[in-house]
């Protein structure tokens, strides 16, 4: 296991809350991009939500903020005319599975040659913690004061049904899981760089602020509760005939 003592050159201080998963996610993605030699040559297409904090924290590559939910199709337009450049999205769960559900499914179905990172913090973080499709059954949010009714949306069976080459769900909630997550991210990025293929990675990410938990409690909540509904793991059919 390689050791990382160096913070990716690309990232400068950011505006996420203490204990937020986004910082780790950004760091992992940009570490892998450095390893692959695309940290200074790529286009980051961001959704609306807390990932927007990343815009100010990036020192290399092109970046663009899209309207809520539209990042994959915007990325597809870019990739159509710059096929050799690494193009990826980072989006929230509300962005991906609520307002942008159509775009998420279409991107997978049409195999847009881009990489999609969906950050699932089980709520609308940026707007102050409302119910999202991913919110757990019974979870109290600012718009489900008595607890959410119904099941959280699970994208992975959908992605598998669509037959994408690679999809995975990881989390930043423990050190062991962070190591696995980095492998998922690496595979997803490789698939675009080497084969111009679509790949999808969802990341369960703590939102201590809106969950009203300490950073440690938030991580425990993921490991003890969230993954019961939304199991971790990867599905790689890219090498199958």
């Amino acid at each position: 296991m390689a050791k990382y003592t160096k913070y990716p050159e690309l990232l400068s201080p950011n505006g996420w809350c203490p204990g937020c998963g986004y910082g780790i996610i950004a760091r992992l993605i940009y570490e892998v991009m450095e390893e692959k030699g695309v940290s200074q040559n790529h286009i980051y297409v961001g959704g609306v939500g807390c990932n927007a904090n990343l815009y100010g924290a990036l020192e290399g590559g092109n970046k663009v903020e899209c309207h809520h939910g539209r990042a994959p199709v915007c990325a597809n337009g870019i990739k159509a005319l710059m096929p050799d450049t690494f193009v990826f999205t980072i989006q929230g769960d509300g962005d991906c599975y609520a307002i942008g559900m159509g775009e998420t499914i279409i991107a997978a179905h049409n195999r847009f040659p881009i990489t999609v990172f969906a950050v699932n913090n089980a709520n609308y973080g940026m707007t102050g913690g409302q119910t999202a499709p991913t919110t757990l059954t019974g979870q109290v949010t600012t718009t489900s004061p008595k607890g959410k009714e119904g099941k959280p949306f699970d994208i992975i069976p959908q992605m598998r049904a669509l037959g994408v080459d690679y999809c995975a769900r990881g989390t930043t909630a423990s050190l062991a899981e962070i190591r696995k997550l980095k492998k998922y991210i690496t595979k997803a990025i490789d698939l675009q760089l080497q084969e111009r293929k679509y790949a999808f990675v969802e990341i369960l990410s703590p939102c201590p602020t809106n969950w009203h938990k300490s950073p440690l409690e938030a991580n425990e909540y993921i490991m003890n509760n969230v993954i019961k509904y939304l199991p971790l793991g990867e599905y790689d059919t890219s090498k199958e005939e």
Partner: protein
Amino acid sequence: MKELWKGNEAIAEAAVRAGCKLYVGYPITPQTEIVEYMSARMPELGRKFIQSESEIISINTVIGGAMTGYRCMTSSSGVGISLMQEGLTDAFAKSIPLLLVNVNRCSCGMGGDFGGSTDDYLRDTRGGGNGDYHFIVMVPSTIQEAVDLTYCAWDIAEKYRNPIEIMTEGRLGQMMECVEMPEFKESPKQEWGFDGTTKFMDFGPMRDHDAKYKARMDAIREHEQRWEEYRTEDAETVIVALGMCSRVCKGAVNILREQGEQVGLLRPITAWPFPVKGFEALPETVKRIIVMEVDNDGQVIEDVLITTKKLTRFQNMPIYNLYKPHLYPADEMIDYYRKVISEEEKEVS
């Protein structure tokens, strides 16, 4: 050499010759021929065609494509362009010179008459989305003009880094006319386009309080007004009309001229910026203005009223407004003119 072209296909071919590198579209009558034409034509030339799953996807994909600095385009009609509004505001805010073609149908809701009208006038000239912004909007009245305007659309859009729209109509899209197609022209990648590095990061949002915004809008207002004057010399009555309606008006003007009436036509070619200068240039003989348009409630009249308020000479001039939801014959225009002259029609107050 002139060839017979269908309006929609002619616009598509003109866009191709102007250097369109990515076209994204979704079927909707009466613009579908553009999508169909592009699906064959673009790949033939090694360019990109994408059929989207919604107009929201069309515009957001085109925004992505156009940020690379290449010429990109989408087209739609009616409700399709209403759906695009979130993206259109974004294209303006990001200073993206993309091309939008609206083949105007008729009426709100599902849209009733595919023959078209100019009833999207206010939405398209005002910017139908959030915030205040403008697309440059050009309204052709013949297929040749649709071709010529499409051919120069990106040149203008790139000059100001402002999105541009060709607003045509169902009838013009569906009919055929003889057209001289222009030659293919070079459309190199713009220097501000994405290159994957930090070099060009010029897509920051343009806010309405921004000095850049005002400078851009003022420059377009100053330099991009286009209009046509037809038989306005010595005119006492000037008809203002655009698009297909103006063609019929020309016929009405010719008939009235034969009958000895001093009538002329002022045809805005740019709906935004509205050709204030065209009004300034009208002869001193003008005594009244009649705005004739195709829509349900009179829309072009708003711009004429604003314009004539600005120009001292027109401030107390009587202005009349004829509008109908469907294109109407020259006879009805002439009838209306006669009633204006005999003071049976009231001026717009």
